[in-house]
């Protein structure tokens, strides 16, 4: 369907490609389907021992003494590891050699000061898991209990406990000029009783001294604003002030974070589960304190193996700190050690999205245009390092709905619950979730169509995002065509037809909803490496993690496209830093498709340059007289040339830059070492993406949903869902569709049932397994689920492709929530997830039921 967009005319287009935009069989497919794929847990090594974890029984405490004597007496028990065996949190170094100091309150993998129930205290290493488990039951812990709190608002009440003795709110001290930021600090903040006066009505307390507290404690990271919000609210025809609560959701990857490690000649070989291959090696080295004389991770001492990863969603960007436990155990025992993480352990150490309690005040003109936004977010951060979700929530709101004036304030509150980490669309999801119900409510109050109110507030082109930077100007994005996506979706979803249908029939009521969503869609500056060999084949080295998105192979098709090499003649090497891989981006935050189509483009251009130079050397003329097509480098317009195979052979004869004996300085050290190792085998294409980009890359999705609610039971089903993506050029349709729908389901899980449950008195979790946490199943998926993508290239990147992993989440979740309020009105829903009990109880009561602000119910 041709996209129409009066506001965006003329729309950019891209050439017809042979490989880009076409489906193909990924190189890992057969192994996955046949079960030959080996995940971390599938590896075995001679004499391998097993480690099991002893988890903290208390939510907050201090281990005064560990008595492992009976355990150590057991035959088959080889070692007990405690925090004394673990390295301290290590400083990191910038590329400029500046030290980034570690957070002294950061995680170390094991602890004597547990800050959540389920935190690993020690590991027992034994000949098998059964022996290790029995040994753990023989260990006695002498624990001093400390006050605990699992609800951020309870911690903020007068007299509320702090989750750690150092305080309850993370703050970020300002960085000295030209220096990296110092570590974050915990401070204490308590609201007054008066601040809580509307708590039971579901209004998030905003303490009267909030501005003063932020000014004195967190001036750099606690608040920002732009525009004149007072004037914005003054000119508003409608002002809504709403509270919404989003859930804590475990990442719940199917593959738990098991790891196996052994040492050979002082070198660590670690088989782990990770989203990124290249990037995990320095992370593991840093966790283990293995740094070179410059303080940089010593990559000559670590080999990371991860050929297949069973899901990450942000929880395994560079694997997990728990992976160093078997590495240290292997060093201590002199034997390989496997640590399989059970499903229950994964619940505790497997990471989760932090919930937000958000209160957002929004002004609208009578036409539905937003005049001002005032946002306050409280994050349930868990006990460890501060997550960026509060700030991201504000930034993404500012981009998605383009308020001309906005104030954002956030508190990152710690609790004695498992550690949080980025989860697909971190913070962006929460910002979208805070705002979408308000937009839908405004559409009802103002009598404006839901799609129309989204469209009128949507970004277009190089739209601004967030507050002004140090230069006094607001940063902006590379491009947005979300209005086109809304138009396309409206048509494909038959929005008007559905809107015209009667809402109620029998005991059922139907509703339709739309939501828009956005997130960062790509980074720049990474490397690519490939060798064109005399057999005429292109051997591509991939440092991208194989986390199930297909980007590990998708991106490299750009190089093949440029060189006109059939995909069947391309071989990809991936999955082990021992196999000479280049420096790649972390596969998180939807960076990879953008970053590595660029890197692959740079590699392709480097190969073409070298091919033309070789042709000119051999056949006369200048390099620019030649072009590459049909697996040949030849004179423009036909004539003499070399096959790629011949050129590869010539590259070896020429040596130097042509076969990798000389490596360009601009590439990362890891890439240099890998290139040197592969030198002399053919024409080496190696390059860093140093192409310009004007703006920050972001991706967009519009979600459309219809729901049907049974008024007698509160049960609802999602009848239809459509996700329309504005993610630039389509690289691999099947993988893209999988991402749009898969990540929409991740969001839909937040809408329909996924959550944590805690008993606040004991500080202990009740929902620890799949059937308690309730991630959605295939039967919860919408009956009819469709995707579409605009295929409009982003103008700031050569192929035009952006990332897709994040924005479907918010669109999926909030299209459902907005459809539910369309069906049920504004007096039912105050938080996600929305379950049958809340709907039924609210309908019975005629007002919102359930506790609006209590955490983990």
């Amino acid at each position: 369907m041709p996209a129409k967009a009066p506001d965006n005319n003329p729309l950019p287009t891209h050439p017809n490609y042979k490989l880009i935009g076409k489906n193909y069989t990924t190189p890992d497919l057969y192994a996955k389907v046949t079960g030959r794929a080996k995940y971390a847990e599938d590896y075995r090594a001679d004499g391998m021992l097993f480690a099991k974890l002893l988890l903290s029984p208390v939510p907050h405490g201090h281990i005064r003494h560990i008595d492992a004597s009976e355990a150590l007496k057991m035959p088959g028990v080889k070692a007990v590891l405690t925090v004394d065996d673990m390295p301290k949190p290590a400083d990191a170094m910038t590329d400029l050699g500046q030290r980034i100091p570690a957070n002294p309150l950061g995680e170390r993998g094991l602890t004597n000061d547990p800050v959540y129930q389920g935190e690993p205290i020690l590991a027992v290493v034994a000949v098998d898991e059964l022996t290790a488990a029995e040994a753990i039951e023989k260990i006695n812990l002498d624990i001093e209990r400390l006050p605990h709190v699992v609800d951020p608002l309870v911690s903020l009440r007068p007299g509320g406990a702090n989750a750690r003795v150092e305080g309850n709110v993370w703050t970020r001290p300002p960085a000295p000029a030209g220096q990296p930021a110092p570590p974050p600090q915990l401070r204490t903040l308590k609201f007054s009783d008066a601040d809580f006066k509307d708590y039971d009505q579901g209004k998030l307390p905003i303490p009267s001294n909030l501005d003063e507290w932020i000014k004195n404690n967190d001036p750099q990271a606690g608040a920002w604003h732009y525009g004149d919000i007072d004037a914005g609210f003054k000119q508003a025809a409608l002002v809504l002030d709403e509270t919404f609560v989003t859930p804590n959701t475990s990442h719940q990857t199917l593959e738990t974070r098991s790891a196996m490690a052994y040492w050979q000649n002082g070198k660590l070989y670690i088989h782990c589960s990770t989203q990124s291959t290249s990037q995990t090696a320095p992370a593991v080295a840093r966790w283990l304190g293995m740094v070179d004389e410059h303080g940089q991770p010593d990559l000559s001492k670590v080999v990371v193996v991860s050929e297949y990863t069973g899901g990450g969603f942000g929880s395994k960007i560079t694997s997990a700190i728990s992976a160093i436990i078997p590495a240290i155990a292997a060093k201590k025992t002199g034997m390989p050690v496997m640590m399989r993480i059970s499903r229950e352990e994964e619940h505790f150490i497997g990471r989760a999205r932090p919930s937000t309690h958000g209160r957002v005040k929004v002004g609208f003109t009578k036409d539905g245009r937003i005049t001002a936004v005032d946002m306050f977010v409280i994050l349930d951060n868990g006990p460890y390092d501060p997550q960026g979700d509060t700030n991201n929530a504000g930034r993404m709101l500012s981009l998605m709905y383009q308020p001309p004036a906005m104030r954002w304030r956030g508190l990152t509150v710690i609790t004695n619950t498992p550690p949080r980490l980025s989860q697909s669309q971190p913070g962006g999801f929460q910002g979208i979730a805070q705002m979408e119900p308000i937009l839908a409510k405004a559409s009802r109050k103002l009598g404006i169509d839901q799609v129309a109110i989204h469209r009128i507030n949507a970004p277009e082109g190089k739209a601004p995002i967030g507050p002004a930077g140090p230069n006094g100007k607001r940063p902006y994005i590379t491009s947005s065509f979300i209005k086109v996506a809304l138009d396309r979706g409206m048509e494909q979803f038959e929005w008007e037809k559905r809107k015209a249908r009667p809402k109620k029939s029998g005991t059922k009521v139907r509703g339709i909803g739309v939501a828009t969503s956005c997130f960062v869609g790509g980074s720049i500056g990474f490397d690519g490496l490939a060798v064109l060999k005399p057999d005429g084949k292109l051997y591509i080295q991939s440092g991208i993690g194989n986390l199930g998105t297909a980007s590990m192979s998708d991106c490299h098709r750009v190089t093949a496209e440029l060189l006109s090499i059939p995909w069947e003649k391309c071989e990809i090497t991936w999955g082990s830093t021992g196999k000479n891989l280049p420096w790649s981006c972390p596969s998180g935050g939807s960076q990879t498709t953008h970053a590595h189509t660029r890197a692959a483009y740079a590699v392709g251009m480097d190969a073409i340059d070298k091919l033309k130079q070789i042709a000119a050397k051999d056949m006369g003329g200048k390099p620019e007289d030649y072009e590459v097509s049909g697996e040949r480098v030849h004179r423009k317009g036909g004539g003499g040339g070399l096959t790629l195979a011949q050129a590869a052979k010539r590259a070896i004869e020429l040596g130097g830059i042509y076969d990798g004996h000389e490596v360009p300085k601009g590439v990362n050290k890891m890439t240099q070492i890998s290139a040197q190792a592969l030198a002399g085998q053919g024409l080496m294409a190696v390059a860093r993406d140093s192409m310009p980009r004007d703006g920050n890359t972001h991706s967009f999705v519009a979600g459309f949903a219809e729901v049907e609610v049974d008024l007698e039971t509160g049960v609802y089903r999602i009848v239809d869902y459509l996700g329309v993506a504005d993610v630039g050029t389509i690289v691999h349709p099947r993988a893209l569709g999988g991402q749009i729908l898969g990540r929409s389901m991740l969001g839909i899980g937040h809408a329909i049932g996924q959550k944590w449950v805690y008993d606040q008195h004991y500080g202990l979790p009740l929902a620890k397994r799949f059937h308690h946490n309730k991630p959605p199943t295939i039967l919860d998926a919408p009956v009819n689920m469709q995707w579409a993508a605009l295929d409009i290239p982003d103008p700031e990147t050569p192929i035009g492709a952006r990332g897709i992993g994040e924005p479907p989440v918010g669109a999926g979740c909030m299209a459902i929530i907005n459809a539910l309020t369309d069906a049920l009105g504004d007096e039912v829903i105050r938080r996600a997830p929305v379950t049958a009990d809340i709907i039924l109880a609210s309908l019975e009561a005629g007002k919102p039921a359930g506790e609006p602000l209590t955490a983990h119910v």
Partner: protein
Amino acid sequence: MAIIRDIMPAFELFQPATTDDAVVMLSKYGKDAWVMGGGLDTFDWLKDRIKRPAVVVDLSQVKELSGIRPWNGGLEIGAMTTLTEVVRHPEVRQKFSILSTGAEAAASPQIRNQGTLGGNISQDARCWYYRGGWKCYRAGGNTCYADTPTAINREHAILQADRCVAVNPSDSAPALIALDAQMVIRNSKGERVVNAEDYFVGPDLDITHMTVLRPGDLLTAIRIPATWAGTQFYFEKVRDRQVWDFPLVNVASSAVISGGTIQRMRIAVNGVAARPLRLKEVEAAVAGKPRNAETANMAAELAIRGAEPLRYNGYKIPLMRNLVKRAIRGVEEAKWA
């Protein structure tokens, strides 16, 4: 002693080939023996090392315990028959479809392939405090953690709670009660048969058991009489997820209706008390009444009489009321333009 979960401890495993052998083993090991059907309930307990039997008697090799056969015009279903077999059996579907519907509502396809009818009705409570290893009344302690001011008890009992507020989670149990089924139990002393509704016990009678089965007992079969074959059935389960989830509340009923009048009816609900409840007062009240909204409303109000909500489960009262209503008068299906 430190606690570790999610790894199964060692035990002695017996796999008898006949019912007689199984009964001998259960008699010999008494309280030390654990009866394992499909293993779905068993492995949860064993992997969490909370129940620590010395001996597990795995019934999977006892062929005579599985299968569906004719019995007095009705059916006898071996206790080890999988839920999938129950769901697919032509005669069950034709005469007693409420049972196939109820069995199909349980868990997930994978679990139904492995899980048995005997196991589904004999499974333990799913209260997350109890299953989490908290030393509560049901676990032999002296507290109910699910009934404290901070307890999260959205899935707990509204009726017949007695210290313990756990509920029975079975989807096939109310269907069997509605069909007036009987449970066949064997032990070393012989065989006894109990009515479905009497198979289940509440905390007032026995706070540590869900059924009348005691050490040495073996549920061998479930008998379904012809009495309610082909009558008008209603089954509905309300749950959070559409697969792999226990009921918040479910309802099952069989009714003989002639000329718009309810001649006789059996109705049971589950998920509201520690045992599936047969609603005898409702059955009596609707007998002879016209099948209409008025009768349904009257019966529904009767059904929830005495229901008491905990902090988070008040919704179960209107939910049970509405499900009973629907069992009697049906659901007005939507007709979209």
